[in-house]
């Protein structure tokens, strides 16, 4: 047989299907991996983790079942005050610190969240967790939590960590998340049902925070795959039980984990790896999607732009893969990456008017338009554009940061302008978008 023939026969062999742990196995065959739950519960009986059991005294363990019927576990190791950091009000600009604008101490946490008082919510969560209310009023609003009430403990802990992330204190959240130790430990499983006691959202957030906290970014990728394995087991289980909605929930979670792995790779600066990984995530023939059409295509394009490959970015959203808007946005960004700011400016202007015709207000379009204006030498217009966005109620970190950067460019008296801007933003009605801003937002 000649070489050419060998090649042809290899080439004609259909490519075998490659399925990774982040893909859903459509066939409802039992996974070769034994059920996560049974594995965890058996291992728990065999070897309880010593590191996690230090908060448990034998006495509390034996007396617990009568108090809490759900679980006998004692989570008092998460209630130690030394875990939690003090949040200084000095990190926020004076206009936000004004007592008349700060929420009352007895405001319930859901209200705090709904009004964007994330720092106050983070403090309130810790007051409840550590039973250290500042007053009788706040004690009534945030009652101390029982060490065995795992539902409320994890709810408060999740609120705490999320709020720290939202107030630009991710490093503190990362330190505090270390108290959870190994979230995959059997200790966190319900001894009766084998179900994980920690809410999914907290487990997912814990992956990233612990990776930062322990200074080991690779750990995040590994931990997401651990969660993905569990999600696949749950999908298989739900499929067998013909529980469609549960199956959809887990498929959605699995898809999100896939995207999160890409994010973790970007944070590790492994951009090429992230691009490869994103390319393997399916959005066409898979029965589930993260968000609407074209989000994955858009994600891929943004990653290529971040890496600098403008052509690859354009290709990712071409032929309708990114939707009409996605393609136009990437097109304008790609022009900017090519240094064609003038062309890009026109495209952003067109996008803005198209969106406004459809009743869409998009802060990103406005901010990028202003960046183009600055780069084409029209800083005065750029500044006016951004001021307009603030007047319309937008207040993202990027908007404020860009605007204060322009203040720095156009006057030596930028400190006063920044404080004025802070005053304007502070006078806005609190919304779930977040009201309180930090000094870093205003470059103060």
């Amino acid at each position: 047989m000649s070489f050419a023939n060998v090649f042809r026969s290899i080439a004609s062999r259909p490519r075998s299907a490659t399925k990774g742990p982040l893909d859903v196995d459509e066939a409802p065959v039992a996974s070769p991996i034994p059920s996560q739950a049974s594995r965890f519960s058996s291992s728990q009986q065999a070897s309880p983790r010593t590191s996690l059991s230090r908060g448990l005294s034998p006495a509390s363990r034996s007396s617990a079942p009568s108090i809490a019927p759900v679980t006998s576990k004692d989570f008092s190791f998460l209630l130690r005050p030394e875990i939690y950091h003090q949040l200084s009000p000095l990190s926020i600009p004076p206009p936000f610190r004004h007592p008349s604008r700060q929420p009352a101490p007895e405001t319930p946490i859901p209200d705090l969240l709904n009004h964007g008082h994330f720092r106050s919510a983070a403090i309130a969560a810790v007051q409840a967790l550590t039973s250290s209310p500042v007053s009788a009023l706040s004690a009534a609003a945030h009652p101390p939590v029982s060490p065995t009430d795992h539902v409320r403990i994890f709810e408060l802990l999740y609120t705490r960590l999320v709020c720290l992330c939202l107030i630009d204190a991710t490093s503190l959240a990362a330190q505090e998340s270390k108290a959870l130790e190994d979230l995959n430990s059997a200790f966190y499983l319900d001894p009766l049902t084998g179900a994980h006691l920690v809410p999914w959202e907290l487990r997912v957030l814990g992956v990233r925070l612990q990776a930062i906290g322990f200074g080991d970014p690779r750990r995040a990728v590994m931990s997401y795959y651990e969660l993905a394995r569990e999600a696949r087991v749950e999908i298989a289980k739900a499929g067998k039980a013909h529980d469609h909605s549960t199956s959809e929930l887990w498929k959605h979670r699995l898809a999100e984990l896939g995207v999160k792995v890409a994010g973790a790779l970007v944070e590790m600066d492994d951009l090429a790896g992230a691009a490869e990984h994103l390319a393997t995530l399916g959005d066409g023939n898979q029965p589930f999607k993260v968000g609407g059409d074209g989000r994955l295509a858009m994600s891929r394009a943004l990653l290529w732009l971040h890496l600098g490959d403008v052509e690859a970015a354009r290709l990712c959203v071409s032929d309708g893969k990114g939707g009409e808007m996605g393609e136009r946005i990437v097109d304008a960004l790609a022009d900017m990456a090519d240094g064609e700011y003038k062309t890009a400016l026109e495209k952003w202007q067109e996008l803005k008017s198209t969106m406004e015709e459809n009743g869409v207000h998009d802060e990103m379009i406005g901010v990028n338009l202003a960046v183009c204006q600055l780069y084409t030498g029209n800083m005065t217009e750029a500044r006016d554009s951004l001021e307009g966005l603030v007047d319309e109620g937008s207040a993202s970190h990027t908007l404020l940061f860009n605007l204060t950067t322009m203040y720095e460019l156009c006057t030596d008296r930028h400190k006063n302008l920044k404080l004025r801007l802070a005053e304007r933003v502070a006078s806005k009605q609190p919304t779930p978008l977040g009201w309180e801003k930090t000094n870093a937002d205003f470059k103060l």
Partner: protein
Amino acid sequence: MSHQRYPSIDPKEPHSVSLKVLRPSLVVQHPLPTPVSLPTASAHNYQEPPIPASLAYHTNGDTNPDPFLLAPILQLPPSFGSAYVGETFSCTLCANHDVPLPGELPPAAAGVSASGNLAPTSPANPPTKRKFTRDVRIEAEMKTPGSSAALKLPLLGANGVVVEHPDSNNNNDNGAAKGHNHAKGGMDLEPGDTLQRIVNFDLKEEGNHVLAVTVSYYEATETSGRTRTFRKLYQFICKGSLIVRTKVGALLPPPPLPSESDDLLEEKKKGGERKGKGRDRRRWVMEAQLENCSEDVMQLSRVGLDLEPGLRYQDCNWEVVGSGGGRPVLHPGEVEQCCFVVEEDLGPNKAKLEVDEDGRIVFGVLGIGWRSEMGNKGFLSTGKLGTRIVK
């Protein structure tokens, strides 16, 4: 910017030139699901949008690729960053007619905020005296490590139009055509106004660079006026981005296969005109190692030879390997190995390959183009590469 010095010609009154490098970056976001305690959250509603505050920006449309880490919104650079050989140094220069904000003035003077100037109103200045700032001009020069004299730089104004060109500087009538503007592109600044210019400069040398910015203007009162000038120096270090090592070796023709040698004999018998086409053509292998010595990730976009007449080459790198690999991405400290086959081009009309008196053949130069974050372009070429003919 590592250094800022202010050897202002007129140091008594502060002036304002601001400087920023240009290249925005995509913003990172970490979409977070709503805390469980919010009444809207429910365990089984998986289409629950994330907390709006955890997204990079607000929209009521569908432009955000959440849950992905990168968002399409652009942020201006937080600091000057690093400058690398092969890349373009870009920055915006601003001369500002600074005035106190209305609230800053003492109540008595609050009504005359227009009295400010590029310099702040000093108490000695009677607030009633109006000052005008006319004919403001910015000029920029770059002093590179290798050159003794500073190089005057072209400046871009609004909409990217070249307003200050080094060649046009000496003829005064050049800018007069511009109607309302003064000669040489000067501009009047009302209080609070800014004159913005953009500088682009291709960095070719490692080492200390100094950007010298000169601002001049005519300060006029109702009755008199004077021309004022100040100068600011911005020093920065340009670092190497790529280390290129090359090696050339002769590519010897493989010994003829037994079956081929007969054919060859046949051919030789047929006539000598095809002689140069096969085995008599000299060939070399040129290998190049490209090491990323910057602190940024770079993606090689083009690596190719620009050869002297009488030579041609074959690329043996990622573009011929096929779509499998894609363009190489080099992290800081990583090395990419490239390879080219250079051969004599012996066509009938081709120039003859020149060998210099030292017996050296000069091939030409190796050009390397790359892109880094958000499309930042870089390009550099080596010196003349070649090989010595072994006789």
